């Protein structure tokens, strides 16, 4: 069969909403796009453990400590499911992680901002997880089967993440003046970076796009960002916080919120590695990986040794 014919069959499946599975024929560019996107998603989960993990030992109550620990652990699980999805495309987890450590692969820039106060843990749950969930719900219907299934599992587990964040903030909003100030400060700092999570504006460039056609992603950056703003602006009222955008207001005609301009200069700088914590995050990941090398080697060596011993015993018997 010619490549053109294969491509036609492939596109036909996509159009009929048939999921693509690992052994199916797929265009090279589709595979590459998936590897890039899924590994970026996986790295985001793993690097995302760091800013929140930063508060596990300092959580202000035993209940909060348990919730946060379980939540950060879930993120490790999500990273694991996603690395497994990339492995179905022919790239090992080790290779994917090497790309992260060499700076070749990116992760969500949001995690390059520091968590300075306890309220930041609430703000991450509410805003960052809120944004991530919109993405992941959409990705449950992505055209690549293993990626869709990983997202379904992730969404099931994530349902409590945004709630726990909102609840942290709700308690602060009903607390002392210091706690209310802590809440407002966190929202001030996390609002714009969380809007940046949706990526550049749709009108940024002039190339044709294949991802839509392949149904890897089904909603554009701007569509999801709008959905997010509309959702958060309403929830902010319950928390009695002000979102730090004087231009944010309800547009009755369009039945959605209008809002101000993102600082794109900051966005691109953080993407390029100039965020406040880019180096710190990557260093922490590399350190964990390097310090764990002897453990991974030893476990492998032990398993090999035991297998050898068992085989010898069988021969002797």
């Amino acid at each position, binding site marked *: 069969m010619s490549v053109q014919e294969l491509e036609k069959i492939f596109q036909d499946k996509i159009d009929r909403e048939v999921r693509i599975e690992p052994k199916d024929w797929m265009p090279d560019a589709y595979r590459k796009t998936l590897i890039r996107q899924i590994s970026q998603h996986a790295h985001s989960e793993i690097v995302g453990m760091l800013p929140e993990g930063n508060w596990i030992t300092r959580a202000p109550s035993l209940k909060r400590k348990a919730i946060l620990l379980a939540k950060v652990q879930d993120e490790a699980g999500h990273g694991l499911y996603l690395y497994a999805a990339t492995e179905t495309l022919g790239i090992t987890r080790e290779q994917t992680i090497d790309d992260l450590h060499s700076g070749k*692969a990116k992760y969500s820039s949001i995690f390059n901002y520091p968590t300075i106060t306890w309220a930041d843990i609430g703000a991450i749950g509410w805003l960052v997880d809120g944004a991530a969930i919109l993405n992941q719900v959409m990705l449950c219907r992505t055209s690549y089967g293993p990626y869709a299934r990983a997202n379904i599992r992730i969404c099931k587990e994530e349902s409590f993440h945004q709630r726990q964040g909102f609840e942290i903030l709700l308690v602060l909003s009903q607390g002392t003046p210091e706690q209310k100030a802590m809440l407002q400060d966190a929202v001030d700092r996390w609002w714009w970076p969380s809007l940046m999570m949706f990526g550049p504006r749709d009108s940024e460039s002039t190339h044709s796009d294949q991802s839509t056609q392949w149904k890897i992603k089904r909603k554009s950056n701007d569509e999801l960002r709008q959905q997010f703003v509309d959702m958060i602006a309403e929830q902010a009222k319950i928390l009695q916080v002000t979102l730090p955008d004087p231009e944010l207001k309800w547009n009755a005609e369009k039945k959605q919120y209008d809002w101000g301009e993102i600082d794109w200069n900051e966005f691109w700088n953080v993407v390029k590695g100039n965020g406040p914590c880019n180096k710190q995050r990557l260093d922490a990941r590399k350190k964990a990986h390097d310090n764990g090398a002897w453990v991974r080697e030893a476990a492998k060596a032990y398993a090999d040794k035991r297998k050898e011993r068992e085989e010898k015993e069988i021969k002797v018997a």
Partner: protein
Amino acid sequence: MNIQIKRYFYGDIPEENTGGGNAGKKEQPGSVTWPLWEVFIRSKQGLDHKHVGSLHATDAKMAIENARDVYTRRMEGISIWVVESQYIHASNPDDAEAFYEPANDKVYRHPTFYDLPDEVKHM
């Protein structure tokens, strides 16, 4: 001139600014990779084991324990099977027609094929 507006997708940073692995790239020397395992879990007595995902482990014992730690954090299972991924033999999707379509016209295998009078209950 045919200019199309690009739609970027959620969190997606344009190609020229980002990485993305190369499939089939050579392993870094000195790196140790644990084998990949497929995990199957029986969620309750009486149901089949169902494929839930994969993980890395050095041997079967570790794979079962890792599966317990990774895939049953919310009491999802009561029984775990693991099998090293390299021992899974999969049918070739190109054979799909020969494999599965013959079953497609055997509608008599499905209960809805049989038109029974409404009075017949519990069948």
